């Protein structure tokens, strides 16, 4: 009887240990994907260039591409290719200073640059661009 209880307790202990090990391994593997982010941030630090956050919305016959570009100067360069949008511009130095203050790593940010591939070809001639605060809203009809 006591031997049965002992082996049951031992089995439970092993089970809990195994589950804990599996959980820790799973969590650690999640942070492997942080490697890509690390590389990107190192590039950001050395070049002073950040990639704008972009949301691409498929509206059926056209795409809406929302580019979030806070502090970016108005002469932003947006180039269109049939399946690609390229955004390049400069961030206002004073904006960076007032945003990041003493954060040394962020002081080098000067430029934004991003290339975004669209799932389908767009009609470059029908594109409209609107600036709404820090957002740039691009409406791009799909090629028929």
């Amino acid at each position: 009887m006591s031997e049965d209880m002992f082996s049951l307790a031992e089995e439970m202990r092993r089970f809990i240990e195994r589950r804990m090990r599996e959980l820790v391994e799973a969590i650690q593997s999640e942070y492997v994907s942080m490697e890509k982010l690390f590389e990107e941030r190192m590039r950001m630090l050395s070049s002073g260039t950040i990639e704008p956050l972009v949301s691409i919305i498929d509206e059926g016959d056209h795409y809406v591409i929302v580019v979030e570009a806070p502090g970016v100067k108005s002469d932003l360069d947006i180039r269109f290719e049939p399946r690609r949008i390229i955004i390049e511009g400069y961030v206002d130095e004073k904006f960076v200073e007032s945003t990041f203050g003493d954060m040394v790593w962020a002081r080098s940010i000067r430029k934004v640059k991003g290339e975004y591939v669209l799932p389908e070809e767009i009609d470059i001639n029908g594109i409209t661009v609107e600036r709404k605060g820090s957002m740039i809203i691009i409406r791009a009809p799909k090629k028929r």
Partner: protein
Amino acid sequence: MYANPVYEEEIDGFTFIEYERFAPEALVLALPDVGLVGAITGLHIVRELRLRDVVGIDSYNMLPPVTVIIDGVPKHPVRIYSTEDGKLGVLLTDVPFTPPAIIAFGVAVVRYARSRGVKTLVSVTGIGNPARFEIEKPNLYVVANRPELEKEVIEKTGAKKIPAGILVGPYSIVLKEASRRGLDNVVLLADAFVDIPDPGAAIVTVEALSKLYGIKVDTKKLEDEADKIKMRLRELMRETRNLMAKMGKSMEYRPTLMYT
């Protein structure tokens, strides 16, 4: 780091370290999620009301090895702040949880809240709306685990009920665990960009919390400093976006089986 915690407890792999005794009536969970609405909301309330952090939460197995420095003081990556009267707590985290850690954390935070006599857990997040860029004032939605509670929130805040949908992530675990363990749970959601930090959506949730818990929080700074907030939080948004994709967040954007 503060010295001499008054109490320490380990729950499901997370250690809750109390620097002051903590027993609020309501605990706001301000986790990084859609549009970082929860995180921005929590951070704004903490700053505006000058709340003090009273509990540190850590896990050497389930969180990356992180110490956060705030005003020169080392802190735990996850912290609970308290109002002066101790009635309201706000949980903030500097690190987004990975999918495997989400479950353990969701269970742990509900168990901890229950042990501290918390009556209501308030989860704050965004609901991805593809037309968000056209909406001036985002809508507020509510899900609650008691019909009376849902009614009360709707009456006080004007929130809309969500008739059908799927909730994915830490708040789904909190909702199920809170129900199981007899705690009230309100989920407040505002229309938001999914992958762009959305201070505009946070204004709506801050206003709702003010109405629900009698706190006075000015939202002007969220409006005035929106661009700076977006710039400062862009990297946290990218980390959160990666993890949202892995936790199956896309399921939130399809009908439920019963709706079909």
